[in-house]
């Protein structure tokens, strides 16, 4: 077990997988000489050479499609799309091709492809560089969409993604790259399609993924101290397939849920989770399911506006307290005194 950043975990895992399997190679804009826009591939051009660390032209559709074609012939490309915003340029290749090729040809060709890309917000990058549009890919059968929130999961899920024979969109997050955590030394791939209960509790269930799973864990610790609440936290980890059972079993136990998401509220991932709880735990709910999501605006540049648009820990705490208050289960000392 070592303590390292999310960035380091990704870097080390890519490196070890390239040593393990000569069919694994990297493609993307500025991943070689420049070491990657977010330095995930630092030093890898020197170590593996131009054949396996390929700086591409600015041509997301072209190089993502080329990676799909290479994967059809059995290579295992790992593509970096600089941020998820630019994946829109490759949407046709990802949605109409990567996700379809196995089924459309009756199971004759596999596409063992990984597309790594960070979502974000909070970096003052404005409307076109701050989106969280993983939903576009999670919507599509044939895709697998992974969203690790911890350095340990970044490693375990990258191992799983590279070794899987299906196209995987691997969602990273700009504000998670510098977060630290324990990472096992052994190479044990995660099981795709499984959520994780990262904190066990009985009062209410918080459900998030990527950055918001990290926020959920922080909020749970904070409210345990300040309000004496026993909060259960679920990190979805896999957005497709979606582990509905883990969510529903948790809500059956806690009878209340708040969903956290960095994407927009309407039609967002949280809407699907809320519908899942409605189908599977309707009779167990003490209160309506709440969602805490980004304000429905193109992300502004100016800091106060950006901060207001992004969901924060305080927004989550507010939603939790309101949910529990509404059914007389609040343990907020301040509320109880009144």
């Amino acid at each position: 077990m070592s303590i390292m950043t999310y960035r380091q975990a990704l870097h080390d895992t890519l490196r070890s997988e390239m040593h393990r399997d000569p069919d694994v190679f990297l493609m993307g804009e500025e991943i070689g000489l420049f070491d990657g826009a977010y330095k995930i591939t630092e030093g890898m051009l020197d170590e593996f050479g131009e054949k396996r660390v390929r700086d591409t032209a600015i041509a997301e559709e072209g190089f993502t499609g080329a990676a799909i074609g290479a994967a059809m012939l059995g290579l295992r490309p790992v593509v970096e799309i600089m941020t998820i915003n630019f994946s829109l340029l490759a949407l046709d290749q990802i949605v109409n091709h990567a996700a379809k090729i196995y089924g459309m040809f009756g199971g004759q060709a596999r596409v063992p492809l990984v597309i790594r890309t960070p979502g974000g917000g909070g970096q003052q990058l404005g409307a076109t560089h701050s989106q969280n549009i993983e939903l576009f890919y999670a919507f599509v059968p044939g895709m697998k969409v992974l969203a690790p929130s911890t350095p340990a999961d970044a490693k375990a899920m990258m191992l799983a993604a590279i070794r899987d024979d299906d196209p995987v969109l691997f969602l990273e997050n700009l504000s998670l790259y510098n977060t630290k955590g324990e990472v096992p030394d052994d190479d044990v791939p995660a099981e795709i399609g499984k959520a994780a209960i990262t904190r066990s509790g009985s009062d209410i269930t918080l459900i998030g993924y990527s950055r918001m799973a990290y926020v959920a864990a922080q909020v749970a610790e904070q409210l345990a101290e300040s309000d004496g609440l026993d909060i259960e936290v679920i990190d979805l980890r896999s957005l497709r397939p979606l582990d509905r059972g883990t969510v529903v079993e948790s809500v059956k136990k806690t009878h209340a849920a708040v969903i956290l998401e960095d994407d927009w509220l309407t039609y967002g991932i949280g809407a699907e989770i809320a519908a899942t709880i409605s189908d599977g735990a309707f009779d167990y709910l003490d209160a309506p399911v709440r969602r805490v999501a980004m304000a429905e605006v193109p992300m502004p540049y100016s800091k106060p506006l950006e901060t207001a648009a992004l969901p924060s820990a305080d927004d989550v705490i507010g939603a939790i307290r309101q949910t529990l208050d509404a059914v007389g289960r609040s343990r907020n000392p301040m509320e109880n005194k009144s």
Partner: protein
Amino acid sequence: MSTRQRTAVAPPKPGTHQNANPTAVMHQTAPSDTAGAKRSTDFYRQMVFIRRFEERAARAYTQALIGGYCHLNLGEEAAVVGLMAALRPTDYLFTNYREHGYALTRGIDPNRVMAELFGRSDGVSKGWGGSMHMFDLEKRMLGGYGIVGGQIPLATGAALAIDYRGVDEIVMCTMGDGTTNIGAFHESLNIAALWNLPIVYVVINNRLGMATTVDKSSAEPELYKRASSYRMASERVDGLDPVAVFEAAQRAAAVARGGKPFLLEVMTERMRGHSVVDPGKYRSAEEIALTKERDPLVTFAAHLVETGLLTEQEIAAINDAAIAQATAAAVFAEASPFPDVSTLFDYTYATPVANDSHRLPGQPLFEPAPYPEHEAAR
């Protein structure tokens, strides 16, 4: 001339267009050249079979035995057989949705091609692809793609994989003339040229998108010239002469085997509408008449008779055999069972995965909880 009439590089006035009289420029295969003679008669046999197969498919479509879209290779037979003859069995083919002829000429069992059109379990893609999505790993035909230009980045990536492994194979990627205007064309040819990939891009130029002509859609209507943007070698060839296409495709393939991409433009005719259901009312009577006059089956047959390679009787026999084989394919396809509905969830993922949904429409996410548990929850 109507404004809607096609205008190619030069307006196609009968007698003056470069392809107006293919027999005049057709390769003079001497009967003593036995290999060449056999190749020419083989080409003709394959061309006739594509024609009769497509006509049989069109009939099945009108009988509602084939659904969806159905785009035929009618008029492009010479281009198809000439191109396919230049490939080795170990080479890869990526093509678009007008691909029945390619599947047949690549050596896929016609019964399985027709069964795919019929949506049956014996289809080449097990009934999952249909007319636009034929695929056969063994014959290295890696699709049939329905999205215009979608195959170009994929084919480029296949060439990347060949280069990565250092094997003696190439990729051929065919597309229509309209496809040269899509971004994926530019991105892919740029990548292939930068990385010296072993691929032949082939533009099948029938001068029509659906109805939009090349000169209405391409600022440089001599499409092979686009290769110069990538310092890529290119050539334009008469697509109504299978031998000319074959020889040009061989030159292109040789360049690709040497580790450089190539752009080959093949000038063809589309004898009917864009798809089976398109009456093609946007074309003038003169243009359609010209298309018939330039029918590669007719002109190549005339050439073969003229040069003594085939007799009229042999041509009739070839035609009869093609009709019989196309009919047999339709009989086979109709007898083939539809895929079982129980296989609906078999091809979403290659690696089985937890929590993959196998629900049919209307099925609940969760079975309703048993009554006592309901009550206990309250």
